């Protein structure tokens, strides 16, 4: 563990917490806002796409798929209109980064979107914002109005012949609305049931069965910076295959939870927890960390992670050595997901934590396909029972078996999102689960936090 605290490098959140900065267009222009848009408009759309591809920027929504590549998949031959959607349905437990951007620097997103729309040839763009972000929606709407009045959005952008309207669509209040195709269904006014792939890949058959690109808020903001400094230059930020910065959202039992923007791979998980976030509460020890939002697999504090990276180098990490980028948590068998780091110390009852995670997924499963619908609720009922004095020794294996029956058999990635926590919690903390059975006659401590 290094003794010096790594320094944040704020690109996306550069102005976010500046007391002299507001979310109005004046502040944004003062800091060089919309210059990238002007630059982009001096280029050909395909050149803009090329820069994004060169930058190697990976999607910040969870899957980490290269954004430039995603744009390449777009079906341009169909002759149908192309849509751009910003996925602002941030609702992964443990993640609160997009909210900062939209509330504090909305014009950055608008600029990123207009550049992206220009690059892919979209004439209509949407920001699908989480229903609970009421204020965020209002901020964005005002910002869009400002941008339109200034000619950065809407009709004949920057006096060119290119027009692209931008609309804020308030979400339907469900986690599943953040799933790409579920979001599209919801935007179409339907239940957000994710679509089957094949055939409904958004880049070919997306919104209204037209080619559609769905990108995360942070990803689209990155596009603005890619154009500003060039894709080549951008790819020098961070590490190869892990370019740019990432905003990490740290929650749980650390002294200074919050959001921190670092270059990819600039620090390890241990540095994040113990240096950046001020460490654990006094007298506590680390028990477990979920590195990428609640659907990522949990990592145990005393685990060793070994193997070889893509570049062939061998690694042997403790939990604290895991580099914070895309590939690090992946190599450790989990994922960086949407950047939500959830820290759990030794006071956490792991079965109760599991029960809470399961409660979330059972509540949020859309109910369309069988394994996720029935499996998530079943797992919730099991863990809830285990926490209410009804635990049995066989429950651990039952949970694993149920999770296995969900994983890889569902329409969307929600199946994995529901199964992975259970699989990792139970496998890695099996003793805690078995122990629950011996305490099965015990009532829950009335002072402990209420279960979800």
């Amino acid at each position, binding site marked *: 563990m290094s003794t010096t605290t790594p320094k944040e490098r704020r690109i996306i959140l550069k102005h976010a917490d500046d007391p002299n900065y507001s979310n109005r267009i004046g502040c944004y222009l003062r800091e060089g806002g919309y210059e990238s848009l002007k630059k982009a408009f001096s280029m050909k759309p395909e050149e803009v796409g090329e820069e994004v591809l060169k930058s190697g920027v990976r999607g910040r929504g969870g899957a980490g798929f290269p954004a430039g590549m995603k744009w390449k998949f777009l079906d341009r031959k169909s002759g149908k209109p192309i849509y751009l959607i910003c996925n602002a349905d941030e609702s992964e437990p443990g993640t609160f980064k997009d909210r900062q951007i939209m509330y504090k620097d909305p014009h950055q997103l608008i600029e990123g979107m207009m550049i992206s729309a220009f690059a892919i040839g979209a004439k209509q763009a949407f920001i699908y914002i989480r229903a609970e972000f009421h204020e965020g929606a209002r901020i964005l709407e005002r910002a869009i109005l400002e941008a339109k009045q200034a000619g950065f959005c809407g009709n004949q952008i920057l006096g060119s012949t290119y027009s692209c309207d931008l609309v804020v669509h308030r979400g339907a209040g469900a986690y599943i609305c953040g799933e790409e195709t579920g979001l599209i269904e919801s935007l179409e006014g339907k239940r957000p049931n994710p679509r089957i792939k094949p055939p409904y890949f958004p880049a070919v058959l997306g919104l209204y069965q037209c080619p559609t690109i769905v990108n995360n808020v942070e990803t689209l903001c990155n596009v603005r910076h890619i154009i500003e400094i060039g894709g080549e230059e951008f790819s020098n930020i961070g590490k190869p295959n892990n370019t740019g910065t990432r905003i990490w959202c740290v929650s749980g039992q650390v002294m200074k939870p919050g959001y921190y923007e670092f270059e990819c791979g600039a620090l390890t998980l241990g540095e994040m927890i113990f240096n950046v976030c001020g460490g654990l509460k006094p007298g506590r020890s680390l028990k477990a960390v979920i590195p990428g939002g609640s659907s990522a697999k949990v990592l145990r504090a005393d685990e060793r992670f070994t193997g070889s990276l893509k570049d062939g180098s061998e690694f042997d990490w403790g939990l604290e050595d895991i580099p914070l980028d895309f590939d690090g948590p992946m190599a450790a068998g989990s994922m960086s997901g949407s950047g939500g780091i959830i820290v759990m110390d030794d006071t956490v009852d792991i079965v109760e934590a599991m029960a809470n995670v399961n409660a979330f997924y059972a509540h949020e499963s859309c109910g369309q396909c069988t394994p996720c619908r029935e499996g*998530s609720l079943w797992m919730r009922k099991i863990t809830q029972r285990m926490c209410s004095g009804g635990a049995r020794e066989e429950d651990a294996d039952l949970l694993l078996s149920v999770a296995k029956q969900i994983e890889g*058999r569902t329409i969307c990635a929600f199946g994995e999102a529901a199964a992975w926590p259970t699989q990792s919690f139970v496998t890695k903390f099996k003793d805690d689960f078995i122990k629950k059975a011996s305490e099965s006659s015990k009532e829950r401590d009335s002072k402990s936090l209420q279960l979800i």
Partner: protein
Amino acid sequence: MIAPEKNELVVISLNGVEVEVPNGINAVEAAALHGKEVPHYCYHPKLSVAGNCRMCLVEMGTPMRDRGTGDPILEEDGTPKIGWVPKPVIGCATNVSPGMHLRTESDLVNECREGIMEFLLVNHPLDCPICDQAGECRLQEFATDYGRGYSRYIERKNVKPKRTRLGPRVTLDDERCILCSRCIRFSQEVAKDDVLGFVDRGSFSTLTCFPGKELANNYSLNTVDICPVGALTSTDFRFKMRVWFLKESKSICPESSAGCNTLVSSREGVIQRITPRRNDLINDTWMTDSGRALYKLVQAEDRIRRPSANGNDIPLDDAISRAFEILKGKKIGVVASCRSTLEEQFLTHRLIELTDAKVFIRGHFGEDDGILLSADRTPNLRGALVSGLSNYYPQDHLNDLNQSISDGEVESLLVIGEDLLESGVSQDNLSKVSVVFMGTHQNSTSSIAEVILPGLTVFEKSGSFINRSFFLQSFDQAIPGPVGLLSDCEIISRLHNLLTDEAAEFFKLNEIWKAMSSSKNSLLAGIEFSELKKGVIQLDGAKWEHLSFIEKEALHHKPLELTTS
């Protein structure tokens, strides 16, 4: 409707065996063609693919190709290297392509099915002993194949509404629903009446009608048929009969000229329900609710069960003799029917020709729904044309009969089923003629007839109809007719024997068909009775192109001028 138009065959590997299947069909259908059942709930061949039940998960791989050159990558032994998809894929949304490999019987596939079965049953009430679907329930069937046999589920089950009235004919048990969305897709895509949807989410999702709407369209009972479990039940059939007691007979719906293929289910001579029978040329797997209700005519109050003369019941033989007395030597008029079978129409036509009788025939028309209830509300108007019974397009009245009676051209009448008063024949004129009525139900004409010869309903006889698209199709007798009655064919034959010199002994269908198929200049020439029993026969209706048939374009039907132009 995912079924591809092309019939081009491709070779795929199904569980390691190379088989030929039509290109582009999905894996469920491809496997079925070669005797491998891929269990499924949400997939229905006539609806869009939803892919939500996940029961049809199979393993799929395609021949690998070099990314640079596009050349196939080969194994050491020279066979194409197969790139297996790491996760199981749903068979319903996997369309076959040349060289595709499918595994429908692997350990992984069986494990998937077992997993899905367990999930579907954890919140299922397991109330088979009182469930109408028992015996024809996919959940039951696949539970036998892939069920665990015991439950690992000790939690409380979800509680949902048990008897929701979705509409006048459909009752929903939400606890049995597996949320496959077939009924929703049917309502949207086939019935074009988008009234069903899910509310709530996750395992608490519940099927319901949209606020202020109900499932009341004339196709609502199809949702009951396609419901793979006992969730949607027919209010009419609910709790009435165990399906394994039912005898199923192939029939044709007589409601309109659409000619829906049906199954008539009966027990001990009593019809319990009518359901559609799949015919991809005519009705797919659908039929109208109104067509299903027609079985109630069999035991209707106004059913004619006994032969009678002047209001007194008499033996059938006597009734036929009395009818002969009335008709013989008079100027006979015959009111034939578009509801008679083709065979009956043929015999009627011969009788008319040999007795120089005048023939009158009327049509019955209504609104065309553009699906399976056509504007022509008789099943066999085209039969009347093909059999030669009528050489004009029947109108919805019998004004010409009224005129003929006024003119004294008709003295006695043999009426098959029609209500003359309602058809435009005046009371005054009716009193001038003696009437022999042959039919199944009472009407104003039967009440004034001197002799009544009871007929059999479609369900009590065999025969054939020609539908709106000139498809000739036969149907089987489902239940016996009332005691002591004869088929209409036999009655007509007997009258024929009495009224003419020529003996027409035949009244068995195969004998009638021998005569029909040997008649020259007939569309029926050369058609074997045994052929007809195998399936539908397309007749060439070009001869009647000039007639303005009333049917609109509808499911699997294009009006003649559209097809020929």
